């Protein structure tokens, strides 16, 4: 508590003490914040390839319908898929709704509603591969791709397959199968339908590979919210809206029919959403067409991502530079105990991964009562981390100035501080500029780590879009251009500053 108070404006005390009613808060706020990862892709939650500014997917429609049942609006919140339950526990959103598989071990960290969908596992292989595995027994010793932490992964491991897991989007998993890097892919039927079977060269095999049930995760102890969602799912199932939704996405199957107790014969409705997906991304468009039709529409998204990347990097650097200066001065001129502290800080921060530091700040500090805003946590982690690197750059700069310069300053009556400001500092800065520039550009790139804490910066924007549009190369070049557009002007400015500070080194012409 003391820490939260000391945190002042940038920290907010942990939001939901146990016993507080999430349902009442959702209804008071008028919105249901639901967490999902747009990188998870079609048909769950993804950016419309024809209009990437909109999130679409059967779970978007489900969330909207459920929120309406609760009398509120649905607001999606981006979160990395394998972190959704952590983010939920931290209070970043009210529920997690994104293909979350029902499993007992999840009940320790969250509550689960009744399942809303059953997805059979589907094996996908290359049509022309005569040796392709076709049953679970066949996968023993074969390279099979899947998503990490999924039921499919556990099934494959039990069956003795050589499992390859992918942290990126689903598209890569099937791309590797097409390229022959794997022999098969085992994943939930919806993924297989949207990413595997869309390729004419791939074939989906229905068989007895197991099935998963998807449920909505609610924070532990929120029984009223869970009951309200259970009731809402029941209503949507009973009046046929849920079935209509699944049919539109081509996802209706006997398993789900049994789950929802809906025994009416198939309606024969056209899966419009699946058809739209096939039309949009079934065949890669020629580059010219992509440049003309698709890429202009992603510009606003990239711009938003770039602004976030830039803002994060600047705030982090604005923290890293002064802190780095202080650390470098303490390390070089401080009294012994202070010097040791500065050295310990630098070594600790440099010697541990930025990823660990970020997770500690974002998910660890709430245990002490300090819950940081995602931007603050991201900027703080980057800033504190880069301060250590900057300190070493500045120390190298200070070391490069001969000790005689300090003595000459002293003998003229300057204090050490005056000497640093007027004599040592300006000479050290010139030496420190090139490595500091390097670091700033590295920081620009490292800022992509903040996608872990729900921020959709430039890299995450790319990953989401690449998966939604099934276009990794073209969009990859586009995102590279954005990074260069941010980084190059900075390099240029740094070179100018270095030249200006080094004017005195030019010899007579």
């Amino acid at each position, binding site marked *: 508590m003391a820490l939260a108070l000391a945190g002042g404006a940038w920290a907010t005390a942990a939001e939901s003490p146990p016993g507080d009613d999430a349902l009442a808060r959702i209804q008071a706020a008028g919105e249901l914040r639901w967490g999902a990862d747009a990188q998870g892709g079609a048909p769950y939650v993804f950016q419309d390839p024809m209009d990437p500014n909109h999130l679409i997917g059967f779970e978007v429609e489900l969330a909207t319908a459920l929120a309406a049942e609760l009398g509120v609006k649905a607001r999606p919140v981006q979160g990395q898929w394998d972190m959704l339950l952590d983010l939920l526990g931290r209070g970043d959103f009210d529920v997690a709704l994104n293909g979350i598989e029902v499993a007992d071990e999840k009940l320790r960290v969250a509550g689960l509603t009744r399942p809303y969908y059953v997805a059979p596992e589907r094996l996908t292989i290359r049509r022309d591969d005569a040796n392709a595995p076709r049953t679970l027994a066949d996968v023993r010793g074969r390279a099979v791709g899947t998503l990490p932490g999924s039921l499919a992964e556990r099934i494959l491991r039990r069956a003795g397959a050589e499992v390859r897991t992918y942290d990126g989007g689903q598209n890569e998993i099937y791309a590797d199968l097409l390229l022959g890097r794997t022999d098969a892919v085992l994943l939930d039927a919806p993924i297989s339908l949207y990413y595997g079977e869309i390729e004419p060269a791939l074939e989906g095999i229905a068989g007895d590979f197991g099935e998963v049930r998807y449920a909505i995760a609610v924070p532990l102890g929120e029984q009223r919210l869970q009951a309200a969602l259970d009731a809402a799912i029941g209503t949507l199932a009973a009046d046929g809206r849920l079935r209509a939704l699944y049919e539109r996405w081509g996802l209706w199957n006997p398993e789900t029919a049994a789950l929802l107790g809906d025994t009416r014969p198939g309606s024969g409705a056209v899966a419009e959403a699946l058809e739209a997906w096939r039309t949009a991304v079934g065949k890669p468009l020629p580059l010219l067409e992509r440049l003309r039709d698709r890429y202009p529409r992603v510009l606003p998204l990239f711009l938003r991502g770039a602004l976030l990347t830039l803002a994060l990097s600047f705030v982090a650097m604005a923290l890293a530079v002064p802190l780095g200066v202080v650390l470098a001065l303490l390390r070089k001129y401080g009294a012994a105990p202070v010097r040791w502290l500065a050295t310990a800080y630098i070594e600790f921060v440099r010697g541990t991964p930025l990823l660990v530091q970020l997770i500690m700040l974002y998910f660890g500090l709430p245990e002490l009562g300090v819950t940081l805003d995602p931007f603050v946590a991201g900027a703080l982690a980057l800033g504190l981390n880069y301060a250590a690197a900057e300190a070493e750059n500045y120390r190298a700069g200070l070391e490069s100035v*001969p000790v*005689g*310069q300090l*003595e*000459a300053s*002293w*003998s*003229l*009556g*300057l204090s050490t501080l*005056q000497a640093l400001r*007027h*004599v040592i500092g*300006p*000479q050290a800065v*010139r030496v420190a500029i090139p490595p500091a520039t390097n670091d700033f550009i590295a920081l620009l790139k490292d800022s992509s780590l903040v996608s872990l804490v729900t921020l959709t910066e430039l890299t995450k924007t790319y990953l989401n879009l690449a998966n939604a549009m099934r276009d990794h190369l073209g969009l990859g070049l586009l995102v590279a251009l954005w990074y260069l557009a941010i980084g190059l002007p900075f390099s240029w400015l740094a070179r100018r500053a270095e030249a200006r*500070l080094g*004017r*005195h*080194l030019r*010899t*007579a012409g």
Partner: protein
Amino acid sequence: MTAAAVTVTGLTHRHRGAAAPTLDDVAFTVPAGALAAVVGASGSGKTTLLRCLAGLEVPARGTIAIGAHTAAAGRSGAATLRGRVGLVFQTFELFPHLTVLENCVLAPITVRRIARAEAETAARALLDRLGLADKADAHPQRLSGGQCQRVAIARALAMAPACLLYDEPTSALDPARKGEVLDVLATVRAGGVTQIVVSHDEALVARVADHVFRLDAGRLTAEPR
């Protein structure tokens, strides 16, 4: 500038961890406005003596008096000498990122709090006396060794020290131009500043010094005249 007598009594200095003292009970007086030389083999303690006088080394015992100001042994005493006593380093230690004029006005402005215009006028007059009027806006890299030395002298004189110290003033110069140093020392003497030169070049010293002190293993061995 008002020249002041320099009186050293019982000056003893020992480097950390060294068995023998670098300076052992050194005492001498240089009258106001005189030019004294300290000679001796390398390792005899000449430079340490100079650094003690400039307040860059902290002696263990003894006092250093510059006119009416007396600095006792110890860190705080040493600090009081800085700015009162000018030092021309063997390597000059000009500030490379500043022009000649900026080198000369930095300390008057930041330490003495003299207005920039006034400090620059005074510095230009000094540079003019030392034959550097046309170099005021140049950076040190563009100057010859002799010119750098004169800038270092001008920079020290800009603080109006009572005493000016030189560490091996001929070592960085072309042998043919060593004579120029004599002219500079004479110019400074005319300005009324007590000067102490540390040098191993006894022939040079003999031509200009009013007093010559010889150091041998940290002890003052003779005062020939």
